[in-house]
């Protein structure tokens, strides 16, 4: 098992190098001279030339790329064109906010998705099943930023129960977390339901019922444990996806996370911040996916035994 984890960690290195290379290449297409952007429009040309040389902007592309990677490994992503502060520090200051939002969102999604999925599966074709399936369908079809606006309209503007936007006190996380979590809740509901339906048809469930185990126990003990294995993967993948996709929700609610930092940086043409935020989020995403795979191997004895040899 340790060997497996170690192997996966090693495999992550080329992926992350590739990710940074792709993002770095894309961002190098950004029009405008960084040196000019830092010094301002009115700076004298010789000053701009000087800074270009100092920043190594005249070096070949690959040299620039490897310098970026080298610096990034030491936690140095350069300085923001706008605030002149270290980009890495800025991202790190914002990251906890994105993380909290994502954790609450996924908790809401799990708290809704798994029970509703189980009830749907155990009472297939009932009214309850139809309602939750329609709900799940609407959940995946709704653009989450619009849902956020509608929630503001209902609970902040209409009822006045919750704050409009921003980051004031514990209650301000409720609406953004629901907004971010709804899509995931819908996906988890569907996954739990179909996984549960599949497990319920297995022979060992029939055996359990035949030997007279109470239905409640069949569902909770025999079926659920097996049905939840694929659900865990989906929850983990959704977590990674939400972490990266919180951009829109953070914009709607003016939530001070990495996503909003990215959007602001794009508007201000602050390339170092854009580059660093995307690289940071893609790296986090890869790590979460790796963790999900490892967790999956742990919870599924069939996979675990493959690697224990």
């Amino acid at each position: 098992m340790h060997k497996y984890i170690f192997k996966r960690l090693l495999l992550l290195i080329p992926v992350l190098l590739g990710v940074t290379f792709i993002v770095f290449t894309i961002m190098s297409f950004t029009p405008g001279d960084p040196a000019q952007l830092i010094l301002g429009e009115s700076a004298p040309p010789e000053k701009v030339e000087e800074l270009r040389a100092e920043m190594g902007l005249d070096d070949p592309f690959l040299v620039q790329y490897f310098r970026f990677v080298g610096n990034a490994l030491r936690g140095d992503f350069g300085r923001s064109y706008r605030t002149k502060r270290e980009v890495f520090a800025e991202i790190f200051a914002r990251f906890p906010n994105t993380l909290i939002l994502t954790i609450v969102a996924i908790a809401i999604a799990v708290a809704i998705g798994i029970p509703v999925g189980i009830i749907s599966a155990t009472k297939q074709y009932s009214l309850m099943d139809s309602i939750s399936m329609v709900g799940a369908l609407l959940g995946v079809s709704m653009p989450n930023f619009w849902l956020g606006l509608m929630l503001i309209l209902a609970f902040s503007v209409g009822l006045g129960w919750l704050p409009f936007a921003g980051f004031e006190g514990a209650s301000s996380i409720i609406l953004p977390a629901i907004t971010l979590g709804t899509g995931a809740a819908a996906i988890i509901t569907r996954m739990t339901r179909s996984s549960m339906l599949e497990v319920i048809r297995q022979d060992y469930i029939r055996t359990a019922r035949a030997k007279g185990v109470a239905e409640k126990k069949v569902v909770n003990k025999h079926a659920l444990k097996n049905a939840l294995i694929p659900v865990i993967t989906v929850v983990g993948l959704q977590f990674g996806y939400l972490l990266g996709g919180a951009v829109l929700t953070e914009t709607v609610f003016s939530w001070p996370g990495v996503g909003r930092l990215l959007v602001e940086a794009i508007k201000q043409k602050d390339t170092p911040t854009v580059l660093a935020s995307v690289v940071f989020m893609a790296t986090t995403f890869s790590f979460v996916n790796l963790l999900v795979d490892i967790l999956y191997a742990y919870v599924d004895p069939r996979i675990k035994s493959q690697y224990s040899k």
Partner: protein
Amino acid sequence: MTSSIAEKRDITSKNKNKKRSQWAEVWRRLRKNKMAMVGLGILIILIVSALSAPLIADYEDVVIKQDLINKLEEPSLEHIFGKDEFGRDIFARIIWGARVSLVVGIVAVGISVISGGTLGAVAGYYGGKLDTVIMRIMDIFLAIPSILLAIAIVSALGPSIINLMIAIGISYVPTYARIVRASVLSIREQEFIEAAKAIGASDFRIILRHIIPNALAPVIVQGTLGVAGAILSTAGLSFIGLGIQPPAPEWGAMLSTSRAYLRYAWHVTTFPGVAIMITILALNLLGDGLRDALDPRLKQ
């Protein structure tokens, strides 16, 4: 004697039917699926109204021209969805917006299907080192959340409708590469491919005439769902100011500007979102239906 002839005839006519109607059979199964038919119906209405947008409202006069005196007017019989912050009819803008969303969605998916499909077909057909190289590169692209990749591309290239289609198209390439590769791998080993090789067909011809038509089913399903994803991405990117630029009518861009008027005008925010939701819902219903119709084995 007579009965055996009749039987034979029956068998031949059955075979004929089967041969003629592979797609008719899919259509027959799809038609039985009520939800998929609802989705298809909504889509047809959307496409027809997008095509007839110029007949419904004049672009310059109704969709773009401002009428500040009547701004944020509530829905009425004359303007069923009300007016926006510049006094423009929201219903007309949504209909014109359908054009943008559908075109961007379809072209973006076209870009990903063609490039991803080609890469996947080449990787699956030739295998070996080429396969490894292509698929490892695809893995790297998959490690970047697609919305982030699209954001990075648009922010570097600048917001325009073309760049938007390219960005969204590129961000979904790996998905199609994987799907096509998987189906090619299973088709490659079949006898009719060997037969085609034996009679001297070129690789290009084999891929184009024999492999692609047989690998089409999963691509059609994923493509339908992909248009939904692309429309959502378009709206999302426009919402953060990286997509379609005002005053052009686009659903996400309409929502973006509506944010400032949330306190005073509910209708400005509500209707463009409903339009997005219905479109995505229709595509999802049709996509799910197509999956069941194209591969009945999947349906339990």
